[in-house]
Structure formats: structure tokens, C-alpha cells
């Protein structure tokens, strides 16, 4: 178990930097992780982060397809908001485990 301090709070993460305890997450922490990824969070980012967190809390699987069902943004915008590997980056910033889905 590794610990990292974000925004003055020490959190538990796995070897890839994903939170092992999503309840330690705060919006300020998200902004700091995003900065490491080169992303400045906007309201739109936070809206999709909230969507991902609530899906995770409800035990629903996260897939790239589920972003289209979010009613917030479409998949294309998702790729623009979190360039590169969007689902991996967004879940890391959202303080939830890395999705194990292939879709």
C-alpha cells in the first residue's frame, strides 16, 4: 500500500496511483491529480467525474460506452476532456479503481 499527499490530505493508492479508498477523495484532490496529468478541471470535467463516482458507488461497470448514457457529454467530448486514455485518466482523477472492462 502506497500513500500520497494531495492538497494536504494523505490518501491510499495502489502501485498505479489509483485510490484504494474512494471515500478519501475530495474535489481539491481531483484538481491536483488532474494537474499532474496536464488537465485543468472545468465544471464539465467535474460533472463527468461525479457521474463516474456515482456509477462506481452503485456497483455499475464503467465502460467507454456508458459515457454516452451519462446525459452530460458524448464519448467524443470525453476524449477531448481527458486526452490520451480518457477512462483511465478520468477514473484516476475521480479517485475510483481503474476499470477492468475491455469495452
Amino acid at each position, binding site marked *: 500500500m502506497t500513500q500520497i499527499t494531495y492538497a494536504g490530505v494523505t490518501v491510499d493508492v495502489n502501485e498505479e496511483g489509483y485510490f484504494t479508498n474512494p471515500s478519501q477523495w475530495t474535489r481539491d484532490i481531483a484538481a491536483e491529480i488532474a494537474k499532474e496529468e496536464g488537465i485543468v478541471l472545468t465544471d464539465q470535467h467535474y460533472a463527468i467525474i461525479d457521474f463516474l463516482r456515482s456509477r462506481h458507488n452503485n456497483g455499475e461497470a464503467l465502460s467507454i*460506452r456508458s459515457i454516452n448514457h451519462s446525459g452530460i457529454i458524448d*464519448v*467524443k467530448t*470525453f*476524449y477531448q476532456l481527458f*486526452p490520451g*486514455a*480518457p477512462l483511465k485518466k478520468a477514473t484516476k482523477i475521480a479517485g475510483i479503481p481503474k476499470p477492468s472492462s*475491455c*469495452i
Partner: protein
Amino acid sequence: MESNNPIKKVNIICAKAAIEDVYAALVMGNGAVMEGIEANLFFTFFGLDAIVKNRMDKPHTAVVGNPGLRLPGGLRMPTLLGVIPGMEAMTSSMMLSTMEKLDIPPVSEFLELIKAGGGKIYACKLAMDMFKFTKEDLWDEVDGVLTVGEFYALAGGEGSHIIFT
């Protein structure tokens, strides 16, 4: 998990129309863009069906000559059962609905996900001529019709791989 020679681009060739062939190409293509890897999908021969407008969302799997196919319960599908009219359509639609339950989208939606991630979809010129398809027959979002030379030209680059499904 990090490697010194990361894959930067995949060029995936799909030459067959069966569910398992088309979806292998789609899963690998979408998986690539999800990881930030550039993806070019090239559909040729029977694989063209996956990007032909009125055919793309109705792929079938073989019920005759498919030793991997099993009946519910795990027994192998007898070849003679496969020749019953409608068996292939029924088996294929059962398979697609099982996939839908796992959040695996229909072909056209899957291609849209790949495009949303910056992936490119191409048709093979020779196969188009063979099957007498025109550009109008193809899915509207196909990026182009390529010769094999043009395919190789865009497949180049460090960390680029060609995958034949």
C-alpha cells in the same frame, strides 16, 4: 506493465464477416484508442460487410463447420442441426443479445466509439470492386477507400503494428 517499446499505432485488418472476426477487430481497435494508441481499421473481402450500411448490424456466425459452437448446456452443436433453415440467424441473434447484455455495442455503435476516440475506418478498394460496392453503399463515416499501397503508407511509423484478425 510499462514497456520500453510501447505500441503507438495499430493497423487492424478484418477480412471476414463472422461475428467473432468483426468483433475481434472492433474490440482491439476500440481498446487501442481507449489506451491512447492510434488505430486504423481496414475492412476487406467479406469483412466489408461490417461497414456496408444495410449489413453492418446483422453479422452472423457459422453454425456449420464451426467446431467451437456449443448448444446451451455445453454440448457441441451437431453439424446436421446447423443445416436447419433459420438456425444460423437464430444462433447469431442469440449471440448478439448475450453480447449486448455485457455492454458490447452493435457494430455501427462500436465503430462510432472508435471514431470518437480518433480511430480511422477504411475500406479495401479491390474488395469494393469485387463485390461491386460503391462509396454510397458504405457507412457514412468511413474515412476512405484504400489500395493496399495506401494502407501500407499509413501503417508506417515507429511502434506501429499490423494485426490481421
